[in-house]
């Protein structure tokens, strides 16, 4: 299931609900992405982010997330899968994204969870605008994210 929303989500409540719904399956893997409090990708660079705004492309976002979920379900024996991604203005420590996967095989749950977040970071149409003391700046895409996503193209199970 996918949810694209402006509202916050309760990661713990989502995890508990997901475990209860898939409780007899074996394992649940989870990733929570949170707003960092520093500019860009280097925590030592010094500058502090006050907030960020996540812009998205309504319609295409849901379409891409649904396609990414379908791809994961085709590649791994998943009992269930949930992606929640927020948009709008967020402050450091706020939750951005939640990915949950359940499988009888923990390795499948982990791989699908990593695949989902890697693809989401490189294919879902979201853009981060960081607010700093200088104003706002668009975050640049990272080549490391492309590399993490690319491994799934070469080999579905790594």
């Amino acid at each position, binding site marked *: 299931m996918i949810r694209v929303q402006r509202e916050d989500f309760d990661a713990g409540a989502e995890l508990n609900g997901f475990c209860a719904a898939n409780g007899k399956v074996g394992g649940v893997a989870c990733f929570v*992405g949170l707003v960092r409090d520093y500019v860009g990708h280097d925590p030592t660079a010094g500058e502090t982010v006050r907030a960020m705004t*996540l*812009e*998205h*492309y309504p*319609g*295409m976002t849901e*379409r*891409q997330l649904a396609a990414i979920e379908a791809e994961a379900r085709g590649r791994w024996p998943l009992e269930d899968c949930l992606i929640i*991604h927020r948009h709008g203005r967020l402050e450091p420590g706020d939750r*951005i*994204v939640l990915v949950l996967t359940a499988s009888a095989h923990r390795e499948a749950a982990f791989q699908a969870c990593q695949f989902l*977040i890697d693809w*989401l*970071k*490189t*294919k*879902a*149409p*979201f*853009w*981060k*605008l960081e607010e700093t003391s200088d104003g706002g700046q*668009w*975050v*640049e*895409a*990272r080549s490391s*994210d492309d590399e993490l996503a690319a491994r799934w193209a070469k080999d579905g199970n790594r």
Partner: protein
Amino acid sequence: MKLLYFAWLRSKVGMGEETVAPPAEVRDVSSLIAWLKERGPGHAAAFADLSVVRVAVNQDYAGLDHPVRAGDEVAFFPPVTGG
């Protein structure tokens, strides 16, 4: 044809959305961009470096050779940074 611009492409073009009726020679993304660059300095700046521009036609990623026609929704945006 409905055009959408996101993130810094929106800032450069100066709007998030516009409806255009390109001439018949505009048959693919590439020729659409060439035509758009003539519409003003904002458009020209937005499309100055196509290596940092991604394109979606009807909400699916598309290459420069992807056909476009009347009624399509064509979106331009930088590489994504969600998650």
